[in-house]
């Protein structure tokens, strides 16, 4: 596994890991987006046999990221769970129990449809639309017009669109990779869950993007 890459925003240091997580050095925070936990279970409950190992591996990846970075808090910018409660969430709760000292902030995404009590019981701090912390703002949908108008001053971290970038070579070849995408006033994190689709983005002048290619992370813009 390649070492994380450093990206500086407003004099803060963020480490981008090919494990699809971002570590904020100054605040000792681990930031992730779009985990979609319970998605395989949701499909399976409907008779569609998606292998559950995807979910198991996602959870393990999160655990090892927490063990590596030893954050004081975990910030989730939405879509922690894919749909309604199912047995797969019990496995998540078990993990949560083992790490009960870790503070978790969840900014709710469009998929987070569980009742608020559920999150409270699991020991999350839930934020309905956004959470402002230090000079930064955490929210789910970067295109949400209500929230965007208020965020011009602060820098935001978002998710929702599962960004990917297509790299083209000569002879009309192209490959597609999930990516971290940094715009002027906000960034979009890659989806953490592996059982998720992606949406192609095209960086403009002055923006940055880091592609996740297997075990590597590469700055491409």
């Amino acid at each position, binding site marked *: 596994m390649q070492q994380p890459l450093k990206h500086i925003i407003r004099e803060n240091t963020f480490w981008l890991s090919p494990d699809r997580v971002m570590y904020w050095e100054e605040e000792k925070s681990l930031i992730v987006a779009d985990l979609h936990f319970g998605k395989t279970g949701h499909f399976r409950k409907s008779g*569609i046999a998606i292998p559950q190992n995807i979910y198991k591996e996602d959870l393990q990846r999160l655990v090892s990221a927490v063990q590596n970075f030893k954050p004081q808090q975990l910030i989730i910018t939405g879509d922690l769970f894919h*749909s309604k409660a199912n047995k797969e969430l019990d496995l998540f709760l078990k993990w949560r129990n083992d790490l009960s000292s870790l503070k978790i902030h969840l900014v709710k995404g469009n998929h987070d449809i569980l009742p608020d009590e559920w999150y409270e019981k699991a020991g999350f701090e839930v934020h309905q639309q956004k959470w402002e912390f230090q000079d930064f703002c955490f929210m789910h949908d970067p295109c949400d017009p209500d929230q965007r108008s208020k965020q011009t001053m602060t820098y935001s971290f978002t998710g929702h669109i599962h960004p990917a970038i297509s790299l083209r070579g000569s002879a009309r070849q192209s490959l597609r990779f999930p990516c971290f995408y940094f715009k002027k006033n906000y960034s979009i994190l890659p989806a953490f869950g592996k059982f998720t689709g992606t949406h192609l983005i095209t960086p403009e002048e002055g923006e940055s993007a880091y592609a996740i290619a297997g075990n590597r992370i590469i700055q491409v*813009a």
Partner: protein
Amino acid sequence: MILPLKNTEGHRIVTEWLSSQKLQPFSFQEETWQYIIDGKSGLVNAPTGCGKTYSVFLGSLIQFINLHPDDFRKRKNSGLQLLWITPLRALAKDIARAMEEAIAGLEMNWKTGVRNGDTQTAERSRQKKQMPEVLIITPESLHLLLAQKGYAELFSSLKIIAVDEWHELLGSKRGVQVELAISRIRGCRAQFTNEPLQVWGISATLGNMEEALAVLLSPLNQKGKMVRAGTKKEVYKKHYAASEYKLNARRSFLKKETVGEGMIIESILPDEIEKYPWAGHLGIKLIHKVIPIIRNSRTTLIFINTRGMSETWYQKLLDECPDLAGAIALHHGSVDRELRYWVEENLHSGKLKAVVCTASLDLGVDFRPVETVIQVGSPKGVARFLQRAGRSGHSYDTDSKIYFLPTHSLELLEAAALKTAISRNFIESRMPMVLCYDVLIQFLNTIAISDGFDPGKVFQEVSSTYCFKDMSGDEWDRIIHFISSGGNALQQYDDYKKLEWENGSYKINDRHIARRHRMNIGTIVSEAMLKVKYVGGGYVGVIEEYFISRLQPGDIFTLAGRNLEFVMIKDMTVLVKRSSAKRSIVPSWFGGRMPLSANLGKVLRETLTSVKSEKQIFGSDPTLSNTYSESPELNALLPLFELQQQLSYIPKENELLIEQIETEDGFHLFVYPFEGRLVHEAMAALLAYRISLQTPITFSFAMNDYSFELLSDRPVPVDDSNVYELFSPENLMEDIQRSINSTEMAKRKFRDIAVIGGLIFQGFPGEQKKARHLQNSASLLFNVLSEYEPENLLLRQSYTEVMEQQMEEARLRDTLKRIQGSKIIIRFPQQLTPFCFPVKVDSMREDLSSEKLEDRINKMIMQYEI
């Protein structure tokens, strides 16, 4: 004891009725009737339009009359007697009409029913209460019937299953559906009667008739009878000799036509041949030559290979001949079904002057007013061309005429080859599909939602079909395991639910799962489709989501021959307004593109050889250039051949041409095997892989039916020293599997398999919303299965299908063997040649790389531009 047909009451009554109509049965019909009353099964090989429907249907009536000689007229509600499986919904109504005519003429109390996707719910429940004696059904609807509680009883009185147009079903997954349905019906019927079930197929001529019969009757475990009618001309000649009656040409029963024998093919030649044949441009340019043909004929069918092109043609025809508005119609799979019915009705009644259509009008009863058929673009195979030519209702003693209109000039070569192939009666075979686990999984779920199934019993039935005869007990166990416990799981954290074990059988009890499954029954997988409606109400048709997603509100597009302005998407419905704009975007549909058949490819290569010899004569004596050839197509192509010869080479039958050309795009390698798109796709992957073993190099591919192209950013190391090795059939399987691992082929196959096997829920157009959290893309599913459950049966099947159908492995192997025995000619033209142009413009490209991912990424980054 065999009862001679002519001594039976049924025969007497049926022939009396026929005589009263001034008709007399054909000999192949009587042959079939005899077999039917003997309780036999078999296959009737007869061309369309000479009474093939009546061969089996009247046989069934004769059988019934013989069983009830005293009260056959009075008997009603006799239960289902004849199940008539037909591949096309459009056929059902016409077949029912022909049958009802006979039933009324015989004053019998039989009823006919139609059951397909268009059947109203009220009619369905009426049928459930009282089955008609004859039920005309599609394979999909038959499976839906098996999803109905208490279905077994419906078949208790059934005598005969007829499978119409078996040549169309064989070789497709719909054919497998038919095989499975026959095996199940036979199995559940056994609890009511000891009488053997009879199965009769009806088929046009195929290269493998005996195999077609064997596949169909495999569940009955018997050999069966083959009834061969011969060509139409033969049928009628024989009939005339024996008949003292005058033929009544008005009746569909004895409509007079010829197919194959006595057919004239005329190519519509451009005035000037383009030396560089850009694909897809020429067709429309020839429209002014089409218009007089339409004007001089009663009704003309214009067959276009793609729906997108058919929209364009329809528009252009209207632009050119505004006076024909209302007399020209458009017919393809995305046109609203009411409109399609209207078109078919008006074709029958002769009110239409011309219909622009796709394969949607390939099958079925003929439209009598149709005098002329125009085929635009390559029909890709001999059988398909014959089928389309047969749509015209010419009198049997004159020759039928079909026009061939090329879409690029090289297709004229194909026209010349088609003529040769038809004169030799060189018709393609259809290979039956085997071990289609996706269809089996769907079928097992289907019978699990109705009455459940006993795995031991159903295993016996399933393995009686041709498709699954080689399935091992182990594979069966894995399928049952997959659908009952859902593959890899985390035991106590799993909610998987589908099949449940209950009193010795597997059942699906969850109503939602059952409902979703019913919606998903079928093996024709389309792209995600959206309904198109006017803002003010009114349904236009359906359209691919992919196409709409690229439009902005205000854009104009064409659907069902109308120019529409895109307003918005609401509730998964595309809302549009009428538009009078002149310019519009024509949707592209991802229809199944047929590859050139092996038969046609072979004749094509022979045809090129004759060009070659002409060229030599012409070379020594230029005055012969325009007079030598007897083929107008080859004559027309002489300028193109001349340029090809000058820049490169024209390969003979026993030669393979390779061209290496450098352009600003990079280094091109063109190879010309003339083996069809699928084999070329496989050969391109194979060649790219083998070259890349020698030196790290990355290619993109393009291919068409004549040739394929490898394109790289560096010179391609293919020369006399390694070329035979690169095309060697040795280690074919291993190399192919390695080469396609890094391509998209299996992934593309997987989409259909995953939908059929129930891993992707498609829903109906406009209904996706309800299942939002169950949406999933095939490529994502393919990736996660490859990573987390590589042994998954459906995943494996996608690789098998790639080998057998996509790669056409057997044909690929034959091709490589042929190449080993031929002379490989490598040329280095200084510019693009006429032969390479069509493939050059083909945009279908695939990646294959042996360079390390990192190297490749680095290389790309260097070239990457924002």
